[in-house]
């Protein structure tokens, strides 16, 4: 589903190298956790995969048989790549429902499907709210404006449910959440796990992995993947810390 080979990213205009040769293979339906200390390049990796501007990128990324790096941000999204932002962006004046419908219809158009009218869209919204067991209180507000940290993350998961991606990259969707919000978000992720949906779950803490069990765990440090293993690697990290792992 996703095959990354020797991916490097430098801050554009002569900045420093942040990703220093990443290799990663994610199969269909697999959930891979990427852990690592602050500043190790996790969000940069997520951003580069989603097409964020401002980096000089080399290496290859093949997604669903296509050259991902050659596609624009919105093309990637329409092809099924979804990034749950570590810091979701506030957009004053743009209603959440309006935004989601524009997004969903853009995706549907590109698949040759008909656009959903307001009624059909609302029906789908209700269905997804029910699936995730969340309330509709955020939907009529401007996108992310004045949302609490937990509400922003919940909104990201809701968008993922609506857009039904084939590859979801979740950037610290668990951080800054209290235990109830974490359960809500983790429950959402579990509900959305599917045979044809791969996930790259970036997290700083191992506690999310108590709720969402990954197929593989990788440790990113200094722009490189320094260790990979099954979920016991996460437990080992928890015990020794990143420093212990790097020393090993």
């Amino acid at each position: 589903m996703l095959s990354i080979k020797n991916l490097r990213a430098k801050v554009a205009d002569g900045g420093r190298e942040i990703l220093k040769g990443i290799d990663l293979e994610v199969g269909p339906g697999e959930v891979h956790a990427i852990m690592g200390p602050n500043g190790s390049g996790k969000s940069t990796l997520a951003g580069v995969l989603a097409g964020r501007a401002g980096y000089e990128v080399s290496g290859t990324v093949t997604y669903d048989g296509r050259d991902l790096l050659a596609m624009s941000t919105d093309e990637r999204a329409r092809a099924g790549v979804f990034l749950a932002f570590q810091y979701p962006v506030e957009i004053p004046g743009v209603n959440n429902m309006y935004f989601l419908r524009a997004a969903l219809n853009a995706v549907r158009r590109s698949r040759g499907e008909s656009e959903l009218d307001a009624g059909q869209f609302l029906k789908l919204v209700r269905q997804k709210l029910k699936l995730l067991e969340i309330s509709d209180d955020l939907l009529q507000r401007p996108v992310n404006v004045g949302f609490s940290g937990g509400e922003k993350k919940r909104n990201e998961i809701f968008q993922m449910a609506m857009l039904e991606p084939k590859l979801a990259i979740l950037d610290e969707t668990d951080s800054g959440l209290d235990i109830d919000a974490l359960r809500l978000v983790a429950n959402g992720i579990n509900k959305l796990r599917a045979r044809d949906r791969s996930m790259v779950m970036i997290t700083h803490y191992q506690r999310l992995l108590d709720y969402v069990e990954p197929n593989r765990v990788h440790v990113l440090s200094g722009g490189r993947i320094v260790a990979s293993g099954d979920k016991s690697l996460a437990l080992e990290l928890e015990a020794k810390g990143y420093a212990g792992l790097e020393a090993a």
Partner: protein
Amino acid sequence: MIAPLKQDALIATREAAARRFVLPTRRDEPWRFTDLRTLEKSLFPPAAPGADAPSAAVQAAYSSGAPAQRVVLVNGRVAAIQGAHVARLAERLELVREIDDLGPFAALNTAFVEDGIVISLPAGASERIEILHWGAAESAGAYTRVLVELGAGAEATLVESFAGTGNYFGNVIAAIRLGEKARLRHVTLQDEAGAAVHLGAVKADVAEGAEYEAFVLMLGARLSRHDLVACLGKGARCAINGAYLLRGQQEATIATFVDHAAPCAQTSEVVKGVVDDRAHGVFQGKIRVRSDAQKTDAHQLNRNLLLSPRAAVDTKPELEIYADDVKCSHGATVGDLDEAQLFYLRSRGIPEPEARRILVEAFAVDVVDLVADAPARDYLMRHLGRWLESGR
């Protein structure tokens, strides 16, 4: 000197005004940012009478649809009129006189104007009036004047729309007098033909406790300007909001001057600009708080969005304060679309042009939302939407 002038009862007034008229230059402070190079060749004399009124479809497009007294002018002359409190200026020409503070184009208007609208509401009355100013002329002028007088406690909503076809020169002067505790909601849509010039100016005298709420949306004309001067009495309230949305090589100015001469009056002003391609937008806003105008509350803001590297904006918000016990603020911003917001929208699959349109719409809708009258607000939103859709 300009000529020929109509040889009617007003001829002495017209001649005096024509003598006073001097084309402004960039050395004149109120005009220093406006590109006037192409103006002189557009100063056409009035169009001959007899042009066709716009079709029913056009009239419907330039109406809010709410029940109202409706007036249609063609090239500045009344083509259709209704309503007990609405009269033709052509029948009340003695009301045409010089209006101070509105600059040279008010003088030009005095020299040339032959018709317009007189609205006068007695104390306590209430009315909704919609005026379509239709221009349909090649190399000719549409001069008109709108006189509004509201008695004490009277309330009116006045929706004026400017549209047309051709390279006409549109010139409209409005003189508004609001009696004590009267209220006027004055909505202006400037959607003139792309080849036209539009120079409009409004003078509002707002008596004690009265309210003047103006909104102006500038979408059309190759060169346009909307001047607004308001003089506020004690405890009067004034809201001036608006937007200019420009593309191609359009040039537009909103210039306002609010004079607080008496205490306890309030002004709030928000003007937004969206400027694309090689267009140029100008905001000049001055609020003067005279020494007697204690407890004045006056706020002014101009925000601009530049959508292309060759688009330009000049903005000059200005406060002149001679009283000490006042609350006043002003500010101006000029910026691009927010890259983080664009990326977020695009990361959900929304193509870049649509993502840009969504953000521009949000920016502009925010100020149109300040229009309190719902039918007028919906009407402006409809034209704003049309402007957005007609983008590239």
